[in-house]
């Protein structure tokens, strides 16, 4: 009996010792409904991709906990001439492979982000050239005066020039053409975390960067990112304790998660606007029963679609109230949002039917619609609801719902007639969506995400002026004019701003940014 007690005691001591070492290692396991499509920070301009890569790579100027500008790889910046911004770079910053970060890397990243296969062209589009003054000083020259430049480059991440050259990754991975390189699976940034291993679609593991240039709040020693596409499985993983944090919490499970004593829910309005786009440039739609012409070129058809969609019902039922219907392509909180302009055309099936008949489609028509099923909150359900509503004005929607890994390459190469997309202005300013979504597609990233090629001459004129105008009043007036034209012409069909809902264990502390970015450097596990 005594021997047994002794053995038990020994076992307890061993267990305690193990427990102690386990307490030192803090693993943070987090999940999302999708995965980053590659480890290349210039390959896809999408929030999740940028959020995940933001732990490994860093911009010159970033955002703090309240979305204020904070110096990251640049310590200071000032305008030395109307078209020149001088950035002083941080000293003694090293990439994960040990090479120092210098002005040459910034110039290299400018070229890389500008190149053909880059998805980040809109970020560097205003920049004409970057001049190296010395190793740690650069002059960024813009083609026009660009007073908001520091606000707009928060997701332009810096890679190592020598690493990219050595690893044959000088050009970004191209998700559209299936072009891959070393940066698909490997990463070498300056960020607070290093990529330890990457298994696409399964797990991505990060460990802290011991050489990081400053101390971070986070106490985690390892972070494991897992995509869990199925909503119920994601909730089950959180409830059972398999993961420490996940987003989005499916709307139907918000109550369950907030009622659970060991979990907490972090909710907040998101800056992302969900909208539908229509191909307005081809003379014949790729996917439609109408041959020889493009019905979406007719404003009446676009307006008919708009008024046939009962957005309030979508917000109430599909989104379970966690969405704010919108008439604008920007959310409240974005510079340039005007409350008075945010009035939706009324939901009115009779008017919609009449508009469609006036346009020459009294019996409706068929159109193919593309929709992701793992990108935005309840995206596939929104599309189904839209399809059902359009059926009431005799428009037959052939819905193609797929995972974002196949969805984005398809719609980014404009292989679509009618699609759903969400947009968060990375600069928190209306110029960004105007430039990327409303201006007609053009050189250096203009209209890069205007996937239906909506075009208006006046908007194309106003765009550059908004970028360079210094007088806030004049600038706001021009932004308002753009949104008015866009609403009058029904260039897109804005739906709503979704709400953020992150679920996590009670012992996790983190910062929820309104642009749905979750940075590990602020994650503390108690």
């Amino acid at each position, binding site marked *: 009996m005594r021997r047994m007690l002794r053995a038990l005691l020994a076992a307890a001591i061993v267990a305690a010792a193990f427990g102690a070492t386990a307490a030192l290692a803090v693993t943070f396991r987090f999940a999302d409904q999708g995965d980053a499509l590659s480890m290349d920070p210039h390959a896809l301009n999408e929030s999740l991709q940028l959020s995940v890569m933001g732990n490994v790579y860093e911009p010159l100027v970033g955002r703090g906990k309240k979305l204020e500008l904070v110096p990251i790889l640049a310590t200071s910046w000032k305008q030395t001439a109307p078209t020149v911004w001088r950035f002083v770079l941080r000293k003694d910053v090293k990439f994960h492979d040990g090479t120092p970060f210098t002005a040459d890397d910034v110039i290299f990243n400018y070229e890389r982000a500008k190149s053909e296969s880059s998805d980040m062209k809109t970020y560097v589009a205003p920049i004409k050239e970057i001049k190296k003054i010395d190793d740690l000083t650069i002059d960024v020259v813009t083609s026009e005066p660009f007073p908001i430049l520091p606000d707009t480059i928060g997701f332009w991440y810096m890679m190592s020039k020598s690493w990219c050259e050595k690893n044959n990754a000088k050009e970004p991975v191209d998700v559209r053409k299936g072009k891959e390189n070393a940066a698909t699976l490997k990463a070498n940034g300056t960020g607070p975390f290093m990529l330890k291993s990457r298994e696409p679609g399964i797990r991505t593991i990060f460990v802290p960067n011991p050489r990081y240039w400053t101390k971070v709040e986070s106490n985690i020693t390892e972070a494991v990112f897992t995509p869990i596409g199925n909503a119920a499985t994601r909730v089950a993983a959180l409830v059972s304790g398999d993961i420490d944090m996940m987003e989005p919490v499916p709307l139907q499970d918000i109550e369950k998660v907030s009622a659970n004593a060991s979990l907490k829910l972090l909710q907040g309005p998101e800056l992302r606007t969900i909208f539908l786009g229509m191909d307005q440039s081809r003379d014949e739609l790729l996917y439609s029963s109408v041959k020889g012409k493009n019905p979406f070129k007719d404003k009446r058809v676009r307006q008919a679609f708009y008024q046939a969609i009962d957005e309030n019902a979508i917000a*109430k039922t599909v989104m379970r109230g966690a969405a704010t219907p919108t008439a604008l392509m920007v959310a409240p909180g974005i510079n340039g949002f005007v409350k008075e302009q945010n009035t939706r055309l009324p939901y009115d099936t009779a008017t919609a039917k009449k508009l469609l008949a006036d346009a020459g489609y009294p019996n409706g028509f068929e159109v193919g619609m593309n929709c992701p099923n793992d990108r935005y909150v309840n995206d596939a359900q929104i599309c189904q609801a839209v399809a059902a509503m359009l059926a009431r004005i005799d428009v037959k929607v*052939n*819905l193609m*719902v797929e995972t974002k890994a196949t969805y984005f390459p398809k719609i980014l190469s404009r292989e679509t007639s009618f699609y759903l997309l969400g947009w968060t202005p990375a600069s928190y300013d209306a110029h960004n969506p105007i430039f990327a979504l409303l201006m007609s597609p053009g050189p250096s990233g203009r209209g890069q995400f205007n996937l239906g090629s909506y075009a208006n001459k006046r908007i194309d004129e106003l765009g550059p002026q908004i970028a360079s105008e210094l007088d806030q009043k004049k600038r706001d007036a021009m932004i308002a004019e753009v949104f008015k034209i866009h609403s009058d012409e029904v260039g897109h069909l804005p739906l709503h701003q979704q709400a953020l809902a992150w679920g996590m264990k009670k012992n996790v502390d983190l910062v929820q940014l309104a642009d749905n970015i979750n940075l590990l450097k602020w994650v503390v596990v108690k």
Partner: protein
Amino acid sequence: MTSVASQTRLARWWDGDLAYGFRRSPVAIVSALVLAVCLVAALFAPWIAPHNPFDLATLNLTDALAPPHGMAGARPEYLLGTDDQGRDVLSAIMFGTRISLLVGVAAVALSVMLGVSLGLVSGYGGGRLDAFIMRAADVQLSFPAILIALLIDGVARAVLPRGAHGDVALVVLIVAIGVSNWPTYARTVRSSTLVEKGKEYVQAARVIGITPAAILFRHLLPNVLGPVLVLATINIATAIVLEATLSFLGVGVPPTRPSLGTLIRVGNDFLFSGEWWITIFPGAALVILVLAINLLGDWLRDALNPKLK
């Protein structure tokens, strides 16, 4: 006992051992009845279902997520409640069963056609052709059926012209499942053919100068069909489950025309939130359907097995 295998005509069945056995087996009778109910509900869905869930114009979001009868907030017109899009669950099950049964039966018919022809040719021809067909079957059997089906679906998506995929999704699904299942039939038929081809009636037919094709399909086929029939009934169930799996993975039919599998997948998201009826009812329907077919297949296998007599 060869007479059992040769008695394949319906009329002779009815007076024969098989029908007698059927009448004596409660399991078989109940399964057949359940299957008949499922079949009628599915086949006549457009006429007897209370709503048409495929007609998008009739869906109304304000009807969404109504609970089934007997629960607080239930709506009289929706017996089993509605799903997140306002589809009547009962009607969706009936229409979904239609798709599931169609896919199941058509896919099995395709694999039977492929498998039986290849098995006959392989067994009767022998030699290199036999070796080739059987090795091909071996190779395919080494992959899980679902992988083959995914591969075929992927290829079809890449090859078919733009926009066509939506229209032919069902056909692709049938072909994918059908092709992924032929080796089992080919093997079974080949082994039966090897046994049969040495028998006197085949030699007699050959002696009087009947062409090999006629021997294969007029003389051998009826005698090797027994086991195939059993396999086919069981495989209909497998095919339905495979379709459910494929739809669950999102490569099946479009979400606006849900099959049973799609319904279950969609409903799965609501399991935790208390809206259990969206997934439980279609799930139960699938279980009942598959169980009935399987039990019937089991009984058929036993009834046709001379060793159990």
